[in-house]
């Protein structure tokens, strides 16, 4: 391994994976428990919240939450339910304990209402935090990192600067033995041949063709392609154009294959995450309904850090894994500097080469991995989105060591 590559101290989990943060995750299992869950986490350092709004449970949502609950950045879990819903907080805690992490759960109805539940939750939190403060610290390098990338609020600069800079960084990460994951197959529309030409082997080629065909058919069926009014106002005119720009985040290394939501990459290298629903009698709504959903999917693959490329500007963050904001639009960077971590727009004006910008992004990712907060993290952004969906997936134990 190259001795010049950075190393830092991370948190070792029982499954051997390493985290860059040491968090307690509070999970609520129905919308009715949402207020209490957030009140428990309110004012607490390194305590994040996710949850599922539905009373009727959903295999996809449970699988996603279990992958997030056993994420490398998560040290312990508190699961809170109302008491009526299908999704079982006790079972979530049980599965998390099997992964070697402390976990507890309770029902609000049993605890005796709002105030008693908040007090009980805070008392459990202080116990869990004490336990995980003793977790083993180990050296980490780029080879231990999984980094996801999503784009949102794209404009004409995203495909020219923002995404290509991520591509340059992804090439470096892959060469260092790390894992790079990008998604939004619904933003690879028109690129079937290009996608297949990037496959590492015949199996990956077949997976990529299948994921592409599913995405294109899905968009045709729901009659909604993955482009927003802001994209058009920002100079993008067609989904084919947006797709070419979005795909630039994939850099130039071979694509190892396709994973689904809550699955970890099956080895080092560059991977595509397919978050598009599979055929199901419920015909669940839109894929990629918003950016937070896609970010959750990437984190569920074990990504300790997610890069977010935005041309027009975005103010979201994420729980569990820090989100790093990159823009290819210098005007946006200056207008929203409080929210933007990296200005890739300098590539367009010739101030910096693409390779040097990739190198600078690598240095930024390393600083965030060492503990420096990304801007959304610092501002307290922790948006999440867990929805009803269906995916044909292998069992969690087979497909995901999350």
């Amino acid at each position: 391994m190259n001795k010049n590559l950075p190393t830092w101290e991370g948190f070792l989990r029982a499954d051997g994976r390493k985290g860059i943060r040491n968090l307690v995750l509070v999970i609520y299992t129905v919308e009715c428990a949402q207020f209490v869950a957030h009140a428990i986490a309110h004012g607490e350092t390194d305590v994040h919240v996710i949850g599922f709004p539905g009373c009727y449970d959903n295999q996809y949502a449970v699988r996603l939450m279990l992958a997030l609950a056993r994420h490398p950045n998560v040290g312990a879990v508190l699961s809170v339910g109302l008491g009526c819903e299908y999704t079982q907080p006790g079972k979530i805690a049980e599965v998390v304990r099997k992964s070697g992490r402390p976990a507890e759960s309770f029902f609000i109805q049993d605890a005796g209402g709002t105030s008693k539940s908040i007090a009980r939750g805070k008392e459990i939190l202080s116990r869990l935090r004490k336990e995980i403060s003793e977790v083993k610290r180990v050296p980490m390098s780029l080879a231990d990192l999984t980094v996801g990338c999503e784009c949102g609020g794209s404009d004409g600069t995203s495909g020219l600067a923002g995404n290509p800079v991520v591509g340059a960084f992804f090439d470096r990460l892959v060469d260092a033995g790390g894992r790079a994951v990008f998604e939004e197959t619904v933003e690879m529309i028109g690129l079937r041949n290009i996608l297949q030409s990037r496959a590492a082997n015949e199996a990956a080629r077949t997976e990529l063709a299948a994921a592409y065909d599913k995405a294109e058919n899905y968009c045709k069926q729901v009659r909604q392609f993955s482009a927003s009014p802001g994209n058009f106002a920002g100079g993008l005119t067609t989904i084919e154009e947006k797709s070419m720009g979005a795909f630039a985040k994939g850099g130039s290394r071979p694509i190892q294959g396709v994973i689904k939501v809550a699955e970890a990459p099956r080895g080092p290298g560059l991977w595509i995450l397919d978050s598009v629903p599979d055929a199901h009698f419920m015909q669940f709504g839109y894929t990629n309904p918003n950016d937070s959903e896609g970010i959750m999917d990437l984190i569920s693959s074990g990504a300790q850090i997610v890069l977010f490329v935005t041309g027009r500007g975005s103010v979201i963050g994420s729980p569990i894994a820090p989100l790093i904001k990159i823009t290819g639009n210098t005007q946006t960077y200056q207008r929203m500097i409080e929210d933007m971590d990296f200005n890739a727009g300098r590539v367009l004006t010739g101030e910096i080469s693409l390779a040097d910008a990739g190198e600078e992004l690598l240095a930024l990712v390393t600083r965030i991995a060492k503990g420096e907060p990304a801007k959304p993290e610092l501002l307290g952004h922790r948006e999440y989105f867990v929805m009803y969906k269906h995916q044909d997936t292998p069992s969690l134990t087979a497909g995901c060591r999350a």
Partner: protein
Amino acid sequence: MNPRAFQIQPQDNVATMIDDVQSGAVEISGAAREEISTSEKISHSHKIAVRDIAVNEAVIKFGVRIGHATQAIPRGAWVHLHNLASDLDERSGTLDLHSGAPTDTVYE
């Protein structure tokens, strides 16, 4: 300095504005170096035609087809929803040219 636009591939027939232009000369950089004159206001991040494009001809950016021209587009013109359409996505053709907002959803 004239407003600038960036052309990605030599075979592209559009370039992306990296400044706003009211009208007049635009400096093309990237895969081509030339000056193009426009008579239209084109915003930052939007596209300018670097060649004459005939109706139904492919519009090329990143070296690939990103859709087709729905009317003849002269060199120097703004290329957007009014003269370029996706080969796949029908809804985008109904969006407001300037804001991108949908025009087919009823609010009443």
